[in-house]
């Protein structure tokens, strides 16, 4: 038995929330609505799963969580890809008359009632992670459904940001392409990527400074269209990489100006609150030109707080700051998170993202992945043990492959081995016994740890390799 579940639709009562028919190996097994689960009686082995919908399912964004050990491989195909708005609209219209279909081949390797394979709705948090596991020595590819962001109050609510297939070209140059994700209210969402990946352009696009070439988005509940620019900007605030303060004006005068632009009457209490939030009350009358870079960054943060925004975009807020100033900004963001402010944080500092963000997305022109940092690590890297011995093992292949639960291994160094295992807690004792039995002088056995940096480098390296001729 395999359980398929479909998370909440991202489009409310739109066509995307209609039920999808589920067909396995040619047999119609029923339909599934958002937030429903269905148990599918299937044997081990490959199966064809077909989803039929009267709405256009954007196949590349259809993520399928392969529960480890239950579904080993998933591949997905659908009728062509329609990258442009007009084509997607036409496809949606056609789908509303003729059912749109997506075929998924899954290799179900183990029957288990508890196996859960969430199907992500087309507009949901649904990046496709194509993971290459170099550390285990084996290469496999899977589509991994990323979990939705945590709903802190457990209640259902509108998302702060819904981005669907957003693309921006500057002439022949692509700034970012086909970006889709969703951010919930109260979430700190990290947007990572190397320089030139399109992070700032994405922020500018969502902030209505730049018009997207194609795709759609909803920002703070308002559809991203040129006509809605003022209303969207009223609900959000953006702190660009450079705070952009008027250096000949005092801190208070800078904030007064922006309070006026946001149409805030009686702004003095708001300004006081904002300055208090960033611990700058005592510098309120200082000229901004006399402040250090870190303090200016704080004034920039205070400015973004003035309008009590529903979504706050912080574009590399610690760029160019020394560690102490960066730490201060981190603490401020943690404080804002504690107050339930929704923050969209772009950064290329992975420690910052790991420390501050509930979820992260990695962008390198296209979105490479979205998820919680620890889940990304788990999805990208298999569990592994690192075994160090005093001298190289005489027959490591014979030793490791004979142990139950060991999937693969490779020598990391002369007397160091990385052993990929299904579950480190259960396999580690067997590995230890095997090593002792083989007379090895064991120095250490430990679980391999991967940081968000490993995830990032893994994905970005793939891009670099893919671009090599």
């Amino acid at each position: 038995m395999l359980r398929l579940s479909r998370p909440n639709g991202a489009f409310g009562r739109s066509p995307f929330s209609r039920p999808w028919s589920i067909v396995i190996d040619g047999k119609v097994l029923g339909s599934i609505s958002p937030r429903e689960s269905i148990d599918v009686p299937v044997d081990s082995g490959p199966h064809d799963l077909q989803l039929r919908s009267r709405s256009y399912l954007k196949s590349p964004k259809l993520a399928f969580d392969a529960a480890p050990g239950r579904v080993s491989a998933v591949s997905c195909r659908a009728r062509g890809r329609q990258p442009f708005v007009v084509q997607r609209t036409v496809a949606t219209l056609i789908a509303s008359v003729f059912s749109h279909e997506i075929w998924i081949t899954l290799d179900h390797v183990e029957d288990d009632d508890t196996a859960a394979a969430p199907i992500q709705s087309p507009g949901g948090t649904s990046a496709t992670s194509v993971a290459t596991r170099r550390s285990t020595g084996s290469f496999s590819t899977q589509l991994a459904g990323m979990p939705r962001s945590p709903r802190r109050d457990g209640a259902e609510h509108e998302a702060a940001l819904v981005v669907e297939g957003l693309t921006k070209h500057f002439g022949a140059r692509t700034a970012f392409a086909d970006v889709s994700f969703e951010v919930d209210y109260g979430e700190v969402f990290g947007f990572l990527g190397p320089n030139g990946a399109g992070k700032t352009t994405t922020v500018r696009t969502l902030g209505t400074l730049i018009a997207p070439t194609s795709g759609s988005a909803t920002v703070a509940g308002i559809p991203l269209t040129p006509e809605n620019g003022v209303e969207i900007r009223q609900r959000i605030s953006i702190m660009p990489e450079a705070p952009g303060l008027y250096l000949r004006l005092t801190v208070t005068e800078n904030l007064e100006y922006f309070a006026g632009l946001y149409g805030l009457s009686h702004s003095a209490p708001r300004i006081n609150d904002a300055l208090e939030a960033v611990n700058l009350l005592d510098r309120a009358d200082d000229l901004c030109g006399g402040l250090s870079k870190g303090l200016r960054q704080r004034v920039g943060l205070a400015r973004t707080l003035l309008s009590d925004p529903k979504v706050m975009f912080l574009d590399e807020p610690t760029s160019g700051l020394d560690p102490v100033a960066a730490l201060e900004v981190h603490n401020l963001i943690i404080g804002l998170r504690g107050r339930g402010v929704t923050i969209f944080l772009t950064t290329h500092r992975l420690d910052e993202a790991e420390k501050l963000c509930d979820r992260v997305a990695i962008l390198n022109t296209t979105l490479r992945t979205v998820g919680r940092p620890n889940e990304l690590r788990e999805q990208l890297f298999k569990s592994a043990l690192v075994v160090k011995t005093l001298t190289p093992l005489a027959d490591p292949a014979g030793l490791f492959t004979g142990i139950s639960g060991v999937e693969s291994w490779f020598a990391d160094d002369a007397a160091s081995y990385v052993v990929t295992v299904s579950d480190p807690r259960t396999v580690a004792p067997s590995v230890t016994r095997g090593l002792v039995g083989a007379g090895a002088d064991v120095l250490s056995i430990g679980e391999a740890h991967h940081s968000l940096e490993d995830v990032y480098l893994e994905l970005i390296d793939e891009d670099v390799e893919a671009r090599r001729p």
Partner: protein
Amino acid sequence: MTNFDIGRVSAVVRKELRDYRRKRSIVVTMAVLPAIFLIEPILAIFVAPALGTQSALARYVLVPMLYMLLIPVIIPATLAAYSIAGEREQGTLEPLLTTPIRQQEFILGKATAVMIPSVFLSYAVFALFLLATWLFANPAVSSAVFHQGPILLALVLFAPLLAGWAVVVGMAVSVRASEIRVAQQLGTLGSFPPLGVIVLLAVGVVHPTFPVALEFAAGLLISDLLIFRGVSAMFDRERLVTGVKAGS
């Protein structure tokens, strides 16, 4: 201009005036330029030759009086060119564009902030000139000046209209210019065409009468409004932020 918010316009004006006061180069420019354009006409009036007829005197005082109309052209051209290119150079433009301000509000606020000191200084110079003429000039010359009704009306009406032209042209250049220096040079150049009206009056091609002054003022007003609309259309957030026009 639906939902036009005057509060946002006045926020821009207040901030701009505050910023001008604290920028030394602007303060010096605003102090020196009017003084230069005041000295020459006053000297011309004081050293006026003994001309026989009233009409000869009237023709003589015409040029120094019209000369003062350079003030509402030169001062705003300098300030307006700085208004947007300066913001971009300082990195303050992007945070500003992320606020709910509309382009018409932004441009009107910037233009008003430039107009206020320009028109104030122009009128102050006119008043000082008239005061000096009334107090110290030869009575015949003084009488000739105060009997130039159409020219006095032209000074009052043309000052804000010429300043308006210079402001919007300066801002149009400022939107596109990559640096302040380029914006100031091109903005000053672009502010001169309406001075053709002044030249026509000064060289006697057009005889200064009240209807002529009013007609020229109406023409300048229409030109100002048209060019203001043009600048509003040129104000493209994407171009201002990225240097590339939206949709390209």
